[in-house]
């Protein structure tokens, strides 16, 4: 099979594209292949549905995270204090 007409993709790849789609990083052609895959694969349909739900939930929750650098410096300070207490 030449590369051009490779429409059928294995589940593993479909899931990968689905993950990418959640971050808007999949290409148009990939999306077509994913949707075609979803037509005949029930397991991946389920995964896609849950995945979209997860993305939606996280967007809705407006959960925020601390910067990694900030956390790191916090950790250092904390460890210093911890040692002072233990000694």
């Amino acid at each position, binding site marked *: 099979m030449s590369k051009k007409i490779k429409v059928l993709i294995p589940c593993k790849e479909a899931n990968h594209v689905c993950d*990418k789609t*959640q*971050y808007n990083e999949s290409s148009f052609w990939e999306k077509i292949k994913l949707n075609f895959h979803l037509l005949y694969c029930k397991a991946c349909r389920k995964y896609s549905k849950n995945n979209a739900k997860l993305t939606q*939930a996280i967007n809705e929750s407006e959960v925020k995270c601390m910067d990694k650098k900030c956390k790191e410096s916090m950790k250092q300070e*904390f460890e210093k204090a911890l040692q002072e207490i233990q000694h």
Partner: protein
Amino acid sequence: MSNNLINPNNWIDLYSDYLYNYTISRVSDKMVAQDLVQDTFLAALKSMKNFKGESSERTWLISILKRKIIDYYRKINSNKGKAEVRIGYNNDSESEGDWLEERVADPYDKTAEDILQNNELGEAIHKCLGKLPKKQADVFKMKTIQGLETEVICNELNITASNLWVIIHRARTAMADCLKENWF
């Protein structure tokens, strides 16, 4: 006799994001929130021996954080000579002073129902994030919550892109399963 043991070594990994979220929705300033979280950890360290193990570590830390937030508002208000605190924390005088006790989330804490629901959802997400292995949680947070580019994360954590997607996939599967039980 304490049911809950205290172990400060992994406090920051386990609770810093949770505390930060709690703070940011109340003070809405990044730097202030970070400082308050830091203060909370240090204060908790100092009063570790007062921890009776009646509540979970997290509840205990939140109760300290609440005090810190109140103190913060007192401080910025005192300049005007008006010590009126405007945030909606639980301010009935009965529970004054027993902030080390176990307390359920107080109903006066939130103003509208959607905020309430949002907080519950946030709580569920944090709970699930806490169950993930550390690496998966880190990658998932950076990618999904902070919205960083794939390349940036790869550089910072020193992993390949395909490696990152595998981690993301595992994290998403675990998160979806966990949230299904606790939320959906």
